């Protein structure tokens, strides 16, 4: 087909969708350029094609489009974006156009933003420990290179501060490796965008960072593109330029809402809470782009922010996300209300790849055991707390009281830390041992005896006192 023909055959416009008539061979997912009367062009993509017409989804506002004076050109290509190492240090909008008023970029190549499915055989197992300097994460839900680990947050919680602190402090124990950050702001406020960019500047990370920002007041349909653009850039930097890339997608709930908006414009059968039935597959096509390719010294690690509407972890977006990602960092309003930062609640959190990244040679031999014991003790502390609120402190057994006290210490000393406090893993584990040693030895059934002998701190126990 001739790609220079302009079609002036718009038939209908509804929300973000336009129907172009009298085109018999548009390719599925082909990119089109829509030229308005005032010569402005917007991009669109074919989402249904027949031998009579094509339905095009517009990445931008349909304001200003009219039926008779708009022309559409079919490019013959799916969405390819130009990429280059020069993008490091730059800020772009959600459609990958620079917005930082700096010199042009020489692009090296073009890549399809949808990426291709990575062959599972070609993946390498993530197993490099990333130290974030945050005790709850390093100790209990260890992040490893090539993992996708979302932060489940809620409105009003300090997920931005936590994300920024992780970006600031994250490091592996290997040196001399190329790293880069790709930051995608999806429907974030100008305030938040400024906060992050200032953070990058202050820490000097800006030169290693590519930012794509779709502001809260940008067209919402553009949000469908932003994470794909960010991940395509990350894939280029990682697998073509051998870098270890940390991708931040913030906030995926905004993305999912755009997906829902588009789905309802397409008159699709709505699924739970109006999100389309393919939301899982769609989210997976983004999250699964994290990983490591065998034989390459490069990786993509994802840290995705997902806000839970109404603090509800069973809301479809955090729920589907949790089924795809390799764990989650769960922020709790209860902890935040107690003034504890970062308000990471270990009981809702998990890192599925933790075992690959810990143990002797990576962190420390006792890591698994102490983490399991801390988890289990904190869960018991919660039980004791619930119990005490019903029957009162007096009716608690000595052991319950020990757990109760442990719970408080754990929240204050282990979970809580300062915004600028960077704890190494030994420090984190030692705090854990210090707290757990308040219990008599036989209470520690999750830790192997050899490690108890080595790390347990003999203390005078309340139960000993009772016995005496």
């Amino acid at each position, binding site marked *: 087909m001739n790609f220079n023909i302009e079609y002036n055959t718009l038939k209908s416009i509804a929300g973000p969708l336009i129907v172009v008539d009298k085109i018999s061979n548009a390719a599925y997912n082909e990119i089109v350029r829509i030229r308005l009367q005032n010569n402005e062009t917007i991009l669109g993509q074919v989402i249904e094609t027949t031998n009579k017409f094509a339905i095009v989804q517009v990445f931008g506002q349909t304001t200003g489009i009219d039926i008779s004076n708009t022309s559409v050109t079919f490019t013959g290509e799916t969405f390819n974006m130009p990429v280059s190492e020069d993008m490091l240090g730059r800020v772009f909008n959600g459609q990958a156009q620079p917005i930082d008023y700096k010199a042009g970029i020489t692009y090296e190549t073009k890549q399809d933003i949808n990426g291709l*499915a*990575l062959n*599972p055989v070609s993946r390498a197992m993530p197993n490099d420990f990333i130290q974030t300097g945050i005790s709850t994460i390093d100790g209990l839900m260890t992040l490893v290179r090539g993992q996708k680990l979302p932060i489940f947050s809620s409105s009003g919680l300090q997920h931005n501060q936590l994300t920024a602190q992780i970006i600031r402090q994250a490091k592996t124990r290997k040196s001399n490796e190329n790293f880069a950050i790709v930051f995608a702001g999806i429907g974030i406020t100008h305030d938040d965008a400024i906060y992050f960019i200032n953070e990058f500047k202050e820490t000097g990370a800006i030169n290693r960072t590519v930012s794509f920002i779709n502001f809260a007041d940008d067209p919402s349909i553009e949000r469908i593109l932003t994470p794909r653009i960010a991940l395509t850039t990350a894939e280029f930097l990682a697998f073509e330029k051998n870098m270890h890339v940390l991708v931040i997608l913030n906030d995926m709930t905004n993305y999912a809402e755009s997906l829902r908006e588009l789905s309802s414009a397409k008159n699709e059968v709505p699924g739970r809470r109006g999100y389309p039935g393919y939301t899982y597959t769609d989210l997976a096509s983004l999250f699964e782009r994290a990983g490591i390719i065998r034989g390459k010294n490069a990786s993509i690690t994802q840290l995705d922010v997902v806000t839970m509407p109404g603090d509800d972890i069973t809301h479809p977006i955090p729920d589907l996300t949790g*089924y795809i990602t390799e764990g989650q960092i769960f922020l709790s309003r209860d902890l935040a209300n107690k003034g504890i930062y970062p308000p990471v609640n270990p009981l*809702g959190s*998990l890192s599925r790849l933790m075992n690959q990244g810990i143990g002797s040679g990576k962190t420390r031999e006792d890591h698994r055991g102490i983490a399991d014991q801390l988890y289990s003790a904190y869960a018991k502390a919660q039980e004791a707390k619930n119990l005490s609120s*019903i029957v009162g402190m007096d009716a*608690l057994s000595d052991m319950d009281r020990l757990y109760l006290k442990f719970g408080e210490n754990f929240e204050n000393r282990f979970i809580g830390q300062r915004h600028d406090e960077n704890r190494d893993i030994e420090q984190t584990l030692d705090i854990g041992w210090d707290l757990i040693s308040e219990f008599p030895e*036989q209470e520690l059934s999750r830790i192997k005896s050899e490690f108890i002998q080595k790390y347990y701190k003999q203390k005078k126990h309340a139960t000993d006192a009772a016995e005496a």
Partner: protein
Amino acid sequence: MKINHRGVILGIIEKVSGPIVIANKMLGAKMYDVVKVGDSSLIGEIIQLNEDKAIIQVYEDTAGIRPGEKVETTEHPLSVNLGPGLIANIYDGIQRPLEKIEKESGVYISKGISINSLDLKKKWDFIANKDLKRNAEVKEGDVLGYVQETDIIKHYIMVPPGVKGKLDELKSGKMTITQTVATVKDGSKKIEIPMMQMRAVRKAGKYKNKLMVDEPLITGQRVIDTFFPIAKGGTAAVPGAFGTGKTVIQHQLAKWSDAQIIIYIGCGERGNEMTEVLTEFPELKDPKTGKPLMERTILIANTSNMPVAAREASIYTGITIAEYFRDMGYDIAVMADSTSRWAEAMREVSARLEEMPGEEGYPAYLPKRLAEFYERGGKVETLNGKQGSITIIGAVSPPGGDISEPVSQGTLRITKTFWALDAALASSRHFPSINWLSSYSLYDGNLKNWYLKNIGKEFIENRDQAMKILQREAELKNIVQLVGADALPDSERIILEVGRMIRENFLFQSAYDNIDTFSSLKKQYMMLDLILHFNMLAEKAVKEVSAEKIMQLDAKKEISRMRETSEKDFTAFAENTKKRIEKAFSDLLKANQ
């Protein structure tokens, strides 16, 4: 109808919408025929016919396909290739070999790629069945001979479906899977039989009889083998919210269960999980044979970012391969992780077809499809008179962990074992997070005789007693929630303590600990027996001394460490511990007098 020089039907694409393509001029094409779609020859399957229009679900990404491009039928239904070379392979949802795809197209799966599922060049040592003489009558399923495929798997070559007649020739020798190993005369027709055969995936394979299941699948997982066993040939559902450990349980079963062949279907799940299997399994040894686990494993990987229609097919591909090995007389275990993703793929295709949605948007035929799948499991007498079984363990991922949704409910109506994964247990890191109060196994009756004969009646008595203690513990915990533990009489505090011991020292099992990851039935029996021995002594002692004193006994420590003791040392350990506990109690009672 347009027909090309090879005599196949050619249609023209009229519409493309996601994985659904509509082509016209397709008169003569059959339902469920595989077709090649567009200039890039994407693989698809006809799922509806309407006059000359065929509605096709495409197993690859359709981006770039245009109306006007051609569609070519292959005139056979979606099938798998079966023969030596299957073991240790990893396939996508439509049985394309992922390792070979990597060699051909690099780390990303390129579109329209067509590679044989099996190695056609490799020569295998075929040993003919000596019992078959010339002119013997043979029919579908009869064993013509075998190939020693791996150290542990003898791959029997059988007469393919639909073939019968008098054996004309049968020869041993080094041959590829497409070379003729036997010829059969059916009347005047001469049929050449190679080692490789094809089977359509959507139709259940034939067998002579279904048999009653009567033997447990030993998994080495204590909560499963002792409390909620699954039979060889049985079905189990594992529903659970995310993070409750579905996949770890599936992996544990794939590693340690005593099936002879494992088919692991990663259906719409994480890529890294398949990588984990691929890295771990070759290094792990089968506890029974001592050979690498990969030598009995076949993987089907259609991860969540791979095309959705192929995900729908992956379940059928897996179960058809399982049936093929079952027909050789093997016990197969099929892990389907996750059947919810399979159901979602059905829903997505159904929505694109604009079918009237049933519950939660799933098509109305969802329960039927689930039932058909699980019914392909079971223990059978095969056409050739052997006994084989397929055990199916299906993970279910209910939204929000709420199992009132259609996929969980449809599954629970068919499966006989239910391992209820509990988010509260998982968050306190009690794994496997199988809730002992809400799970069940309906195979208890079928398996009772096996346990009586092979382990002894004490095993069943102990299990029943332990379950009673756990139930009593749960009731008492409710009371404690209201009045505190101090208000309970000492005898009941002992029940709480023993309940805790069963939970923490028996039900809790670490998948990541080299010793704890697998427990033989014998070890399981001895472990539980130790706890119950403690219980018996404590029940007696509490009549004279306080519960507090009993709970502080140092001998308890041994029990809390028993998970660390290896199989080899366990018998001696159990005897010693038993003695020590007895001594501790008699000392306690003496001190009291």
